[in-house]
């Protein structure tokens, strides 16, 4: 029998998956073996989120270099471009995910292990105080309009994102917000970025489509129209057109040579055309895949039964990078100013049963903390899991009885105050079937919801004003510290639960200012534990993004935020 070499990629991966080789060992080997790193990136899900503690995504299909060329692939979202394709101004996640196919970024976060890899930046150094980043840039890269990529291009891009006279987009916070001081082109291939305070997540943010690098020539030439009629990068796809509320069309860049080795693919992408289509109704998106009108669509849980089992269609679940889906509570608004009422709400909600309902279709996992397990180092929440309040309807009723909340008809009340909570939400969330069941659970303990639903603006305005008792909230993104800060650090615009715990604030501040990821988590994990003890929400579930996809799709990958990444994707006949 032929003896396989001990360092063959397959043997190593088998060894890791069987537990014979530790994660630390496999990662050390991957750092030295590009083939192993590529195989890990392509097909193997590592169960931890890596030391970086960021979102890890499932790579569902095998990628192969020799693959069918040509064809057009269409993906449907509810809305493709919510505001603009100009990533210096956009605040819309899907817009960034689309733009990332046209733009290249300075770094690339490998969703398989959370590592930060060189892309347009070949290497970088960070000053000891964490305030100055120096990047060495890749040479010989050209934008689609022939403009060379260099330090001046990076400078032009970052300055555009940080322009105080323009509406800030996601990129503004990604580049450090008010702590961003300057960007300088030292020479053609060297750029420095200076901050006034440490921005530990900076390299992670540089992987996002929102901080992708546009051609400075196009930025200047197209002015206010940039992002509407033009989007010029150096990536594997070239922008063709955007018809608002209808579609975005991208075409193959035939001159593309490739990105980081861990892409697992080099050269021009196989597909001729990539189309992103706006289809607002989830049911219509699901049916379009089933009917072979489009090849892939982001769907919601209630659509799963009509897609599952259909010939030629599969459902892909990718853990969402972001916070848990939380029913946040405003602890300043009676009767939720009583922590025992908040605890009773937690006790009344059976998260396990909830996930079996059609609104969830069995996807996701019961939530524990503000960040889901795929967003923390090694997926390990055990140090704070003790603060999760378990479902116990009898205990909920007993707690409310002790507190003097007496049942009057269907609802408990005390001193004229009824346990009816305003649930601020969007009509979309109501339609998704993820709001009403909570009312059903609460009724078992003599509590009820008064659902106040509207459009996104209604919801966000009410949330920021604190005009709610409860609301279903989450954010997507792979920088966990930013998400926890956003909702739970007193004084932040979205921190409206009324939580103002000095120790929590201090721990979050230290996590934000950390210069290493180890330091970050040493502060963020206990901060989350304290937040859980304050009971300002129900950490309801860890969400999966769901895509209905044709089985003809080959080489589909997902980025670190849980969105499809179509470089190297092809369609089988």
């Amino acid at each position, binding site marked *: 029998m032929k003896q396989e070499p001990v360092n063959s990629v397959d043997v190593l991966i088998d060894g890791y998956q069987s537990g014979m080789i530790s994660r630390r060992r496999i990662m050390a080997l991957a750092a030295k073996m590009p083939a192993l790193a590529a195989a890990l990136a392509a097909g193997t899900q590592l169960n931890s989120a890596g030391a970086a503690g960021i979102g890890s995504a499932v790579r569902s299909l095998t990628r192969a270099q020799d693959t069918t060329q040509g064809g057009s692939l269409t993906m449907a979202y509810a809305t493709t471009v919510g505001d603009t394709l100009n990533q210096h101004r956009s605040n819309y996640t899907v817009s960034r995910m689309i733009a990332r196919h046209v733009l290249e970024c300075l770094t690339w976060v490998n969703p398989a292990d959370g590592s930060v890899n060189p892309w347009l930046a070949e290497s970088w150094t960070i000053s000891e105080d964490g305030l100055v980043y120096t990047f060495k840039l890749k040479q010989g890269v050209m934008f689609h309009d022939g403009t060379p990529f260099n330090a001046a291009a990076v400078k032009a891009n970052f300055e555009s994102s940080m322009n105080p006279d323009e509406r800030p987009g996601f990129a503004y916070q990604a580049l450090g917000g008010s702590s961003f001081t300057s960007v300088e082109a030292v020479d053609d291939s060297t750029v420095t970025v200076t901050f006034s305070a440490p921005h530990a997540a900076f390299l992670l943010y540089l992987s996002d489509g929102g901080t992708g690098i546009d051609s400075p020539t196009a930025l200047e030439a197209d002015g206010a129209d940039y992002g509407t009629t033009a989007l010029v990068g150096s990536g594997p796809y070239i922008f063709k057109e955007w018809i608002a509320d209808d579609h975005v069309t991208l075409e193959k860049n035939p001159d593309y040579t490739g990105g980081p080795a861990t892409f697992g693919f080099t050269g021009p992408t196989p597909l001729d055309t990539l189309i992103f289509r706006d289809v607002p109704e989830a*049911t219509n998106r699901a049916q379009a895949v089933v009917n072979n009108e489009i090849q892939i669509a982001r769907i919601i849980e209630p659509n799963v039964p009509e897609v599952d089992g259909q010939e030629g269609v599969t459902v892909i679940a990718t853990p969402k990078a972001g916070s848990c889906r939380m029913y946040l509570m405003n602890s300043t608004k009676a009767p939720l100013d009583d922590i025992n009422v908040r605890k009773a709400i937690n006790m009344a909600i059976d998260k396990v049963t909830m996930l079996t309902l059609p609104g969830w279709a069995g996807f996701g996992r019961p939530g524990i903390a503000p960040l889901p397990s795929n967003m923390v180092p090694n997926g390990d929440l055990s140090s704070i899991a003790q603060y999760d309040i378990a479902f116990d309807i009898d205990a909920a009723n007993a707690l409310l009885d002790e507190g003097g909340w007496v049942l009057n008809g269907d609802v408990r009340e005390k001193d004229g105050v009824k346990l009816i909570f305003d649930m601020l939400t969007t009509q979309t969330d109501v339609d998704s079937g993820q709001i*009403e069941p909570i009312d059903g659970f609460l009724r078992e303990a003599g509590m009820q919801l*008064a659902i106040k639903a509207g459009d996104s603006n209604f919801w966000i305005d009410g949330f920021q004003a604190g005009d709610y008792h409860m609301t279903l909230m989450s954010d997507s993104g792979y920088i966990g510290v930013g998400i926890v800060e956003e909702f739970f650090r007193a004084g932040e615009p979205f921190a409206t639960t009324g939580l103002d715990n000095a120790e929590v604030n201090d721990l979050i501040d230290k996590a934000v200012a950390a210069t290493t990821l180890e330091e970050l988590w040493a502060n963020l994990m206990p901060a989350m534990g304290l937040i859980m003890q304050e009971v300002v929400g129900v950490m309801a579930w860890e969400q999966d993004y769901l895509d209905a996809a044709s089985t003809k799709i080959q080489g589909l990958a997902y980025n670190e935020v849980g969105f499809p990444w179509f470089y190297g994707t092809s369609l089988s006949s």
Partner: protein
Amino acid sequence: MSKPQSQWRIVWRQLRRNKAAMIGATLLAFEIFLALAAPWIVPFDPYKQNPKAALQAPSREHWFGTDDTGRDLLSRVIYGTRISLRVGLISVGIGGSIGITLGIIAGYRGGFVDNVIMRAMDLLLAFPGILLALAIIAILGPSLFNVMIAVGISAIPSYTRVARGATLALRDRDFVVGARAIGARDARITMKYILPNVLPPLIVLATLGIAGAILTAAGLSFIGLGAVPPTPEWGAILTLGRKYINQAWWYTTFPGLAIMVTVLGINMLGDALRDALDPRLRR
């Protein structure tokens, strides 16, 4: 010589002879019974969820099946009858009371008052009813109560016009002129002499208006601007059920049927009432 019959007696006799009217009346009577008896006849609490029974097809236990949280659909549809009839009656009450008052005033006073009122009605009539209702909801906010106000306001011009027309026809009749001549006040004249005589066409309008109000309210709830969950209003049930339309046909079928049967019954009765009240059609 036989005793002269009252108008209402004649109308009732006409209706009894009209099969469509009797079907409509029977349906409406049944709906009213369901609405009044709901708390005692529903087999399950319409708000109680049972996750293990989510999206179950119609069965002996759940005649109309269950929804996505396991709630019994039959119970929810029955409770929805109370809501829909209430919406219909209150909307018509708002529109009718304001519209009839304005119409009688406009028709009786004439001149400048008539002009002002009718130009205001023309302004309201320039907007399609559903758009007007949407605009009002946008100002007041989505809720069932606001739907009643919105539908009621959008119906005012119709009642005003009919009331005004009928009042104009009666204003110069002998009994009205005579009442004025003996010094009766305008208020007394309109209440005692004009209002009872303008009612018949308005009753027809109101009957048909109830059906229209129920449909509009269901439509507004369907797009999320009316009843909010977990209120078992038919339109609200429809909007939640539509995403399960391929897997759970019962979720949308039964509330849809309830809307259809209710509107059909009221329209049949309303049409027959209109025919019965039209002296040109009487035998």
